[in-house]
Structure formats: C-alpha cells, structure tokens
C-alpha cells in the first residue's frame, strides 16, 4: 500500500459509492454520475493549484477570490465584448493576480500563506469596487460558458471534461516527466539544496504562482457555467475543500511529496461525500461536523499508511 497510495483512496471512494447506492438505489444512473463529475471538476482544478503550490511547501489561499473574480469579469464583460474576449480578459486578470503572488513569494520571500491571504483581501476589495463600476451593465453568463460548465454531450458526458482531461494530463505528465515538475519537488524537499544545485528558485516560484492563478481562473469560468451565476464570492466556499482534496490525496503540506492523481480522487471523494450527507438528510450542523471529522480521519489514516 505504501508504494501505491492511490489504492486505499480509490477503495474509500468505492466504499462511499456503495454506501450511497445502498441507501438510495435509485440514484445510480447516468445523470447522477454526470452531475457528480461536473461538480467535482472545478474543485479538482482548484485542488491542482493547491497540489502544485503545496509540493513546493507553499499554499494558495487566493484561489477562491481569483476564481470568483475571473467568473465575474467574464460575466460582466461578455454582453459587450463577446464570450472569447471576455474569457481571455478574465484569465489575464487571474494571471496578473498570480504574478503578484509569485513576485511576493518568490522575490520578496513573503510566506505563501500570508501572501495569498493578503492578496485575497486585496482582490475582494477590488472586486467590490469593480462591482460598483459595472453595476449598470449587469451580468450574464454566455451560452458558450454554460455549454462548457453545465451541459453534456452524447447523453451524459460532461462537456467540462474537454477542458479538464487535457489540463489534468498536462499536470500529471508535467509533474512526473518535465524539468519544471521535478524542480517543484526539489524546492519542496530542500530549498537550500535546490538553490545550491543551481536552481533559480525565485523564477520557478513566480511561474508556479502564475500557473496557480491561471488554473483558478479556469475553474472560475467553469463554475460560473455550472451554476449559471457570477457573484463576487461565488467560489470562495471551495477554498478550504480544495486544500482538503489535496491533503486527502496525499500531498504533504510541508512540501516535496504528493501528486495530482490523488488530488483528483480527493475531489471526487469530497463531492460524493457531500452528496451522501445530503441524501442522508442531515441538518447542516451534522453535515459540517461529519465533513470535518472525515477529512481529518482520512488525513490521519493516510499519514499512518505512508509512515509505516
């Protein structure tokens, strides 16, 4: 199990699915599978931001605000500029925020937790100001984004997989095989050793946080399509679950260990878990308690497996 940390995770996912189907047999159909995947995808993309930054020993708590900002910029600019221009603009905004994070973390050596937390405050404020400027134009999620986030092809295959599969493949491949991916592990494992070996750590970190911002921007667009809304704090609720998904997936918050495959399974587990708790008709209070307890026990169990 130690060499294949994914196996216990997949087992947990299967167990959750079995429990869910046993409680509510009628749920097991294509429509439900499709909606689970659609809801897991934005979470999995945000978890990618966390996974990549956590591998270097960092974290990106600004993903929620970046994603919300990107969704909101897209939805307000779409009526005037068209869907392509507004989406590109939204992603540029996300990249710029990521760049600022990267400069703070890489060049000024600000702790990633503080840098990204501070940036989310800055973005939140800017967003509220921007909201007042564009209050007249109104928001509209264009049909193309709706198609991407909420619709399916061939009956039940979610269209958002069109974005997610290449993205996930690039991250999985990039982490294992590319020089950049290995630099991330090297920095997370021992930053001083990496620097002495000639790695320009600050450049890697700047690029990393730009990628993280871009991923959050993409997640924001898909989520806007999925929920057909765009408000200032749309994706904020996903920040802590995205960290939880990466942690459940076996990425160490101290850096140097982990991978994206686990985070994808982690995002699926959290999505199925949320459905399960809803199906059980638990009150909100019990749902939150169970959610926290399960995240903690999975993380603890995972720690045991890896340490043995």
């Amino acid at each position: 199990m130690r060499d294949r940390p994914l196996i216990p995770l997949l087992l947990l996912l299967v167990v959750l699915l079995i429990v869910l189907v046993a409680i509510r047999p009628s749920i097991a159909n294509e429509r439900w599978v499709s909606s689970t995947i659609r809801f897991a995808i934005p979470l999995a993309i945000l978890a990618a931001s966390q996974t990549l930054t956590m591998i270097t020993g960092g974290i990106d708590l600004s993903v929620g605000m970046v994603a919300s900002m990107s969704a909101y910029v897209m939805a307000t600019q779409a009526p005037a500029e068209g869907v392509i221009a507004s989406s590109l603009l939204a992603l540029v905004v996300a990249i710029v925020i990521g760049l600022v994070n990267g400069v703070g973390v890489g060049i000024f050596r600000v702790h990633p937790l503080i840098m990204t937390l501070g940036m989310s405050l800055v973005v939140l404020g800017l967003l509220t100001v921007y909201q007042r400027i564009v209050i007249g134009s109104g928001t509209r999620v264009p049909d193309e984004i709706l198609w991407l986030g909420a619709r399916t092809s061939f009956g039940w295959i979610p269209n958002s997989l069109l974005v997610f599969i290449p993205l996930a493949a690039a991250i999985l491949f990039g982490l294992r095989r590319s020089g950049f991916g290995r630099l991330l592990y090297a920095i997370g494992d021992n930053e001083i050793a990496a620097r002495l070996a000639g790695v320009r750590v600050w450049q890697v970190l700047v690029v990393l946080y730009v990628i993280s911002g871009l991923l959050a921007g993409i997640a924001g667009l898909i989520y806007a399509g999925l929920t057909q809304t765009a408000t200032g704090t749309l994706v904020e609720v996903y920040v802590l679950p995205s960290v939880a998904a990466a942690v459940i997936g076996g990425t160490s918050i101290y850096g140097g260990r982990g991978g994206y495959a686990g985070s994808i399974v982690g995002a699926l587990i959290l999505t199925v878990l949320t459905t399960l708790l809803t199906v059980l008709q638990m009150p909100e209070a019990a749902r939150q308690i169970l959610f926290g307890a399960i995240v903690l026990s999975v993380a603890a169990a995972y720690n045991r497996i890896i340490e043995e």
Partner: protein
Amino acid sequence: MSAATNVGGRLNGGGTTLARLVRRNSWVLGLCGLLALLFVITKAIQPAYGPSQVEALALAALPVALAAAGQAIALISGGIDLSIGSVMALTSVTAAVLMKGASEESAIFVVIGVLLMGLAIGAFNGSLVVLTRVPDIVVTLAMLYVWAGAALLVLNTPGGASAQWLRDLIDGTVLTEWAPKAIVLLLVVVFAIWIPVRNSRLGLSFYAVGSDRLAAFRSGVDVPRTKIAAYALTGLFAAMGGLSLTMSTGIGTPVPGPYLLASVAAVVLGGVSLAGGRGGLVGPIVAVFILRLVRTDLTLLGIDPNYTTVIEGAIMVSVVMVGGLIAIRSRRS
C-alpha cells in the same frame, strides 16, 4: 533574559541593557509609534475625534484582539489555529443560550463554564495534532468545520441573551473618559494570563518548541504536552473572544465571523513569526488597533469603504515584505 522577550527578534546584538531592550522590542515600539501617529492623523482629519470614538474603537477591537492573542500563542509554539473563528462562534452561542432566562447571578457560572469549555476545545485540538501527527494547519482546518457545525447545533439562528452586568463590563469608561472599559478588561485578562505563563517553564517551552521542535525535545521539553497546553490557551482566548461577542451584541450568532483572517493579519503585523518561536502578545494587540484605526481614518477621509479591504490586504503583505527585506539585509551585513 529569555527568548520570550525577543519580540520581533530580527535585530539582535550586544550593547547596554537599555539599548538591547529597545532593539529587542524594536518591532513593538515601532508599532506603538505608528499607533500614536495614527491617532494624531485621526485627530487632524476629524478634530471632533474624542473619548466616545475611542470607546467605540475599543469595543470593535475587543473580539479581534482576543482572537489575535490566542492565534499568537498558537503561532509562537509552532502551530496555527484555523478553527479560531468557529470556536468563537461556538462559545458565543453557548454563552448566549445558557444566559437566556437565567438570573444575573448565575451568569458568573456561565462565564466560568464557557471559559473551561474553550480550554477543553483547545486541548482537544492540540491532542488531535499530537495524536494524528497530521500537520497543524490540516487538523485545525478540519476542526473549523466541526466547531462551526457544533455552533449550529447549539443555536440555529442568532438569539440568546447576555446578562446585564456582563454588558456593563465593557460598556463605558473607568476613571477618566479616555479609558474605555473594553481596553482595561482586555489588558487585564491578557496580562493576567500571559505574564505568568510567559515567565514560567511552560512559556519558555512554547518558544522552544516553536523555534526548533527537535532541539526542544532533545533538551527534555515534553513536546506533546507543550503543544496541547498552547492550543488550550488559544482555545481559552477564543472563548473570551466569543464571550466578548455575546457581551457586546447581547446575542449569540452561530456563523463564524471574519476573525480567522483578522487574527492572522494582526499577529503577522504584530511581529510574530509564522515559522514559530518569535514574538509576543503585545505586538498583535497593538496591530489590531492599528488596523482598526486605519479603517476609521479611511472612512473619515470619505474613501470608498470597499477600498479599506484592499488597503488592509496591501498593508498586511507589504509589512511582511519589509520585514523580509530587513531580515535579508541584516543577514548580509
């Protein structure tokens, strides 16, 4: 002198005792100077700024300052408590529910009970960190949900009540009109708890474990016990923060306020290192007042209140950047 007085801790060196004291506390002294400057600026912008405004400032700052004190202890001992806002919500609603319909005298037992509850919650958080060996940030992230859920279990919608004498405790001023009760209470509870702890073996262990866990262990510090004690104290301060919420609003609200962000921002601005082992409680509390006063000034200047969040975030980031630059420069020289 113990490491405990090494506030800010960036500029160490020899010199006379006084010079050393100033240098060791340079960060806090700088913050105090900044706070004084802000008061002068506020007075310049708004000549009518007087005792009643200071009182309002103190009332608004009280829960944040208590949260910052708790968070500072967690960070000093090398941890972090992401669940602090949820614990405040839980203790606040518990106090509000218990005090509703109860007599004025019985409220004292409610206060004691809620404070013990805070200690127990914190000790539970700490035990989980020790037992599961999962990083602090992950454990308290999970507990953030658990305690927030528990708060909803206690009270589903805002409600409850507060004893009148508790409300009087922070409402108004003592002796002079320039000393709001809220500030006096804050200083009394923080120092009554922190000074004995800091000067004890336990306080030294906090700093030891926070700066180097392994070295502390090898020097005979009981690391698990120290961690649990630190989280218990954080829980105690969170409970006081929760109580102060009930005291100032008269009800309990089961939804966590923005205290996690605010406490981390104030603690970092207050000179406590995120890596642990450095800083004190004075800096974070002064920082809370600075952040509050900046917000007041911006409002007085007629700046769009939405920009205040931008400016707060920018202050938080740039302060840490400046601190980092100073650290880099002093290492080079």
